[in-house]
């Protein structure tokens, strides 16, 4: 039940993210990618099944424990996306300083090449 809810939330985040990615403002696009990654993490968590038992600490007595793999995957993915978001924010800032544009239409290129 909760899984369904999470999947729906992930879907909403994906659609909002797509909307923002299609906008022309660079900063909005960057936020859109942030929403995308959050949505994908929620999905990873939901497809593996939520809260089915204790924390995945293996002991003799644990009857049931949640699957640790999706958690490990999400953690890895969060770290990577944190670095990427930092990188693209800096890149966006530098591009803005260098070209004076934050509108993607003006970053097309090709005209003077």
């Amino acid at each position, binding site marked *: 039940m909760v899984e369904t809810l999470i999947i729906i939330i992930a879907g909403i985040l994906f659609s909002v993210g797509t909307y923002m*990615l299609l906008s022309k403002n*660079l900063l909005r*696009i960057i936020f859109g*990618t942030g929403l*995308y*990654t959050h*949505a*994908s*993490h929620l*999905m*990873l968590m939901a*497809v*593996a099944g939520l809260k089915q038992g204790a924390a995945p600490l293996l002991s003799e007595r644990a009857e049931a424990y949640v699957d640790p*793999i*999706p958690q490990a*995957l999400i953690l*890895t*993915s969060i770290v*990577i*996306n944190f*670095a*990427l978001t930092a*990188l*693209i924010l800096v*890149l*966006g800032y*530098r*591009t803005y300083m*260098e*070209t004076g544009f934050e509108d993607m239409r003006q*970053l097309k*290129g090709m005209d003077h*090449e």
Partner: protein
Amino acid sequence: MNNLLIVPIAVPLVAAMVLVFLQKRPRLQLAIAIGALLVALAAAGTLMIQNKTEGIQTLHIGGWEAPFGITLVADMTSVLLVAAALVIGVCCLLFAWDPTLAGHHRHYLFPLMLLLVVGVNGSFLTGDLFNLFVFFEVTLIASYVLLSLGGTKTQLRESIKYVLINMVASTVFVVAVAYLYALFGTLNMAHLAERAAEAGPDGLVTVVGLLFLVVFATKAALLLFFWLPGPYSAPPMAVAALFAALLTKVGIYAILRTFTLIFIHQPEVTGTVLTAMGALTMLLGALGAVSHWSIRRILAYNVILSVGFIIFGIALADEESLAGALFYLLHDMVTKAWLFILGGAIIAIAGTDRLRDIKGLIRYRPQLGWMFLLAAMAVAGVPPLSGFIGKLLILKSGVGAGQFTVSIIGLVTSLIAFYSLLRVFILSFWGETLLNEGEQHATGRNAVLPGLVLAALSVGLGLGSGVVLEWLEPAVRTLTDPAVYIEAVLGTAVR
């Protein structure tokens, strides 16, 4: 268990970390970087021999047996690609030893190039889909920085688009991994292959496979190549050569691996989609290659064109076509690095990459000119050179499978590729020269050694094609029969 598997990943990684501390000493950096790659190459060579004699080599990191831990798998395909990537890495490092790039040398060009090679090697060697994602990201992050290093307007503009597209593709990758995990409860490729075989031809699995195809096609520039020409023409040519030879090939390898191992149970769907994408990529790449007047863009479209051809070979998926695709993949890595290095020398000497402004270079640089012609002939597949056998095998198998249209597209587009490169050769080397002695913007001397090494490789691959095919035989056996791979990774312990 074979600890040698970690060497092509760990040694360049550690070397890259050391190089960061030697910021002020570029010559030492270069020496260490090349040394690290040669050590890794020696390990790859040993693994190649072990593959031939003992079969597939695996390493379960930390002693956690597959499918529970992280597994590295070196079958012949992976090892050959790793070896090619390392040789190309060395050549690109040598080409990057250029006085005009002194600023880049001080700003971590060499460690970043090493990190890119680390990511590529890791992608080739990993036996786990999520790990593949991680190594993709290692490669990509290195490429983001390499692309924007220098910070010119064009570079920044192109890197923004490149990073955004790859971030979206990576998100789709994670989503596809989530679906696959939901279906099979594992991400170890051998384990996945086993469970996919148990599931049989299942529509759901194929849909997830196609989602993976979207991701890998974006990275491999298969049909979804709209992003490629920009970023490949922005950075210095030494970096562009590394990108052209390695980046798209990682995507191709991922397609080759997953679509010969996991998503093989509905070939009527996956094969058709791959063939169609390959054919369209060849056609559109060929159109791009003849429609541009910039050397960088012509070469970038040549990269796209050959991706389509290799994918056609993978889509046919019989022994002959897979041997051809692998051979052509190795050939393509070598020749694309070669072309970009020679093209880079032309651009450096002329000071521009617009073909209309370059003329008569043959008078000052005859060796460079003839070598460029030789590279163009290798791309076209003229017999003694390396392109011939791969093309022959793929086309033979294509005609045998009744794919006449796509085979003809393959033949015609390879002629167009030759034409586009001949145009570069004729326009930039023939004619009345525009430069006087001493007016050249660079000597282009740094292209000589890597150019010769790659030329020797291309000729060697072509002349020794019989020997190469013999070495490819275990690779093809693994690709056509997933059981070999599964057996090597999982053993009999799990079942």
